């Protein structure tokens, strides 16, 4: 189990030996190992999978999901869920595009506006879940529909072109030292989130809430405020991803990000963070995002249709959850 801090690690001193170590590794990383095997299988079917170009593509593709996954990990750690992130991606990109449509020089304002829009969504989610006590699945489900509707209202279902300024297009399309810029953004945000998780009171409180929310309240931890924050962070992550996406494809649309939340949750869960809260880590979501991107890539190379891709990914999430649960139980019982 991943611990909140590196120095006070949770280790079960009562079991030692190679067998115990092996059990621990399988219990914690079993899922990733299994998926690694699956992607290896892809490569055998299509050797093109392993080309450098394809690999860079994979990491590139993982950035979008990755940014969202690392920002939504805290939500899952508090035993919540945020399925509104896909719609928020569309909203944020659209808002930025609309600002740029009116005046192509408003580079910074467009980004701020996009982020502000996603912040509003996050705050609304957080308030409803934390202060009104409504169930996260229902609130973010309603948010998913409401935000999508709002995006359609302000942008219609057409594609909005973004031709300028160059700075904006650089975010998604530029390269630094040959490496696509989004990858830098992804890793920077991941590093920031990991730092928050490991070194700040916020990070520790997130774990405390996930492990035992009532005890956390009785310890005087600012539970309601932190719960609000995690949904805010989750939506901001989606907001950043929305801008990166819009920049990447030079267009924005209210229909983007459809079913993207599935990928995000898949990345988080496959990485080993438990939907029950209190267990997991940001770095695991990074690995999960990479693997989901690899799976997506593999499925495309194999020419699997989009519907079937959806099913395949859904199946992977579910198998990941069930297997993860069983592996956990099994490694603990021994």
């Amino acid at each position, binding site marked *: 189990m991943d611990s909140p801090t590196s*120095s006070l690690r949770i280790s079960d*001193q009562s079991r030692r030996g190679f067998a115990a170590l092996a059990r621990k590794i399988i219990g914690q990383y079993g899922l990733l190992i299994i998926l690694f095997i699956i992607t290896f299988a892809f490569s055998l079917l299509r050797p093109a999978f392993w080309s450098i170009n394809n690999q860079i593509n994979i990491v590139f593709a993982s950035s979008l999901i990755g940014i969202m996954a690392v920002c939504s990990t805290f939500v899952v750690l508090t035993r919540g869920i945020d399925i509104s992130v896909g719609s928020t991606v569309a909203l944020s990109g659209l808002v930025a595009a609309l600002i740029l449509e009116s005046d192509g020089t408003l580079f910074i304002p467009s980004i701020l506006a996009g982020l502000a829009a996603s912040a509003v969504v996050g705050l609304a989610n957080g308030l409803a879940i934390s202060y009104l006590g409504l169930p996260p699945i229902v609130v973010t489900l309603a948010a998913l529909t409401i935000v999508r509707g709002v995006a359609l209202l302000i942008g219609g279902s057409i594609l909005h072109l973004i031709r300028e300024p160059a700075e904006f297009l650089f975010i998604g399309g530029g390269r630094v030292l040959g490496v696509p810029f989004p990858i830098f953004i992804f890793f920077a945000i991941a590093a920031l989130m990991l730092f928050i998780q490991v070194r700040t009171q916020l990070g520790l409180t997130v*774990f405390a809430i996930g492990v035992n929310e009532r005890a956390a309240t009785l310890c005087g931890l600012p539970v309601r405020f932190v719960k609000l924050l995690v949904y805010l962070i989750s939506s901001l992550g989606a907001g950043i991803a929305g801008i990166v996406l819009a920049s990447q494809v030079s267009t924005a649309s209210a229909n983007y990000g459809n079913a993207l939340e599935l990928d995000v949750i898949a990345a988080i869960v496959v990485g080993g963070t438990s939907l029950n809260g209190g267990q997991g880590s940001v770095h695991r979501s990074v690995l999960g995002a990479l693997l989901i991107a690899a799976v997506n890539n593999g499925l495309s190379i194999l020419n699997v249709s989009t519907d079937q891709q959806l099913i395949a990914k859904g199946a992977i999430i579910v198998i990941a959850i069930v297997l993860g649960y069983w592996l956990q139980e099994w490694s603990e019982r021994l």
Partner: protein
Amino acid sequence: MEDSVVLRADSLSKRYGAVQALKNVSITLYAGQTHALVGSNGAGKSTLVKILTGAVVPDSGTIEINGKPMPVGDPRTALDAGIACIYQWPNLVAELSVADNIMLGHHPTNAFGIVNRKVQRRWVRNLLEKHNLQLDLDAPVGSLSSVQQKEVEIAKALSLDASVILMDEPTAALSHSEVEKLFRSIEQLCQQGVAVLYISHILDEIFRVAQRVTVLRDGQLRLSAAAADLTKASLVDAMLGRELSSEVGQAKPQDQVDRPVVLECRNLNKEGVFSNISFKVHEGEILCITGLVGAKRSELVRAIFGADPADGGELWLWGKQVRIRHPLDAIRLGIGFVPEDRHQDGLFMQLSIGLNTIMSSLNRVTKAGLLHPGLMRIAADEQIGKMEIVPAIADYPVKNLSGGNQQKVQLGRWLMGNTRLLILDEPTVGIDIGTKASIYRLLRDLASNGTPVIVVSSDIEEVLTIADRIIVMADGHITGTYVRGFVTQEQILAAASGEMN
């Protein structure tokens, strides 16, 4: 009164993790006889009841009813075999009506499963009349007071036409007149040949109602005899085991009168829960709040801590009035709270001892806005040492500790912070004698160093051992205030039963 055996339980044992809740306990119930089961909190009475009603599967042992062996672990089997139970906490469905709750699981139905509500009403009305209970048949149980809910629970057990009725602290939350009604019902039942197992720790009731008495302590059978052959003193001896006081040692007599007042409650009230609560806590003292189950002591201290704030009244801390609406308020004022249920409310079971210890004092291990691993480690080790926690490893997961050590972790957490008043709710339930003693020592040291301690406890022996002052509550009111050395157990029990001081 016949001598036929109705229920024979043989060598029942049950272990929960590190705790042996029940060890080789046997009990025999005779038709028409009331058999009292006695013991203090954590002695194993509830576990025995749960096994007999099929709610819990014992590790070993057998049960025979009316001469036939009864399979364990299934409530339906127990009910069909004729075992009914009045549970300590009413087991009711809030949204269903009183009548539906009473007849739950055995409604009168026709061939199609349709409930014959007319017949049901008649049955329930007859039952209530017979036992002198007044209840509105159609009211949803969730809208009733705790007394009424208890009566529904009683009626539910009585409706089953059982050959054995278990009653787990049946008079908790009942007033004098209701208790009399219950006793009359018990008499009626015994005349009809029903065997009654009466669980209580109120000695007067036991001698009034029971013909046989069995005493449990620490999960084991200590005494089983006819009530006529026992005296109150011998019963108390068996229940408490006099060795304990010598282990803990006598607390030093404290002179309370002139000590400064740390906490003063004036007229605290919470609608439907408690009212008119006024008392003071002085520097250096251990104040015990005792009473029966349902006296609302936990609710009171949770209100003081801000976990479930009171509706009205005043709180004064060191002479200044304060408002506590949230645990954060209380903690900032220096109040600490060790809740009753350490699994659900107190500890982070999956986290380490170290993390559990520092969780209320994160600001003390923060440097430049960030958590400092070195400071965390030092602070954790310091508390682990002071509390003598075993094993003394900061990374050890709390869920693997014994109950006693788990409580010490909680103590350590509060002592690490700026705690100037500590409240504990039933801190030693289910903990072995050795650790109990060390916790008592820690509390006594804490109080002697100036930090007053409030302990909520149902264990009168514990109260008499550690308290400097004692407050007794019943049904949301204070019924007695005493100073140690000037009160007897009987007085406390009387006050706890609702007789005002």
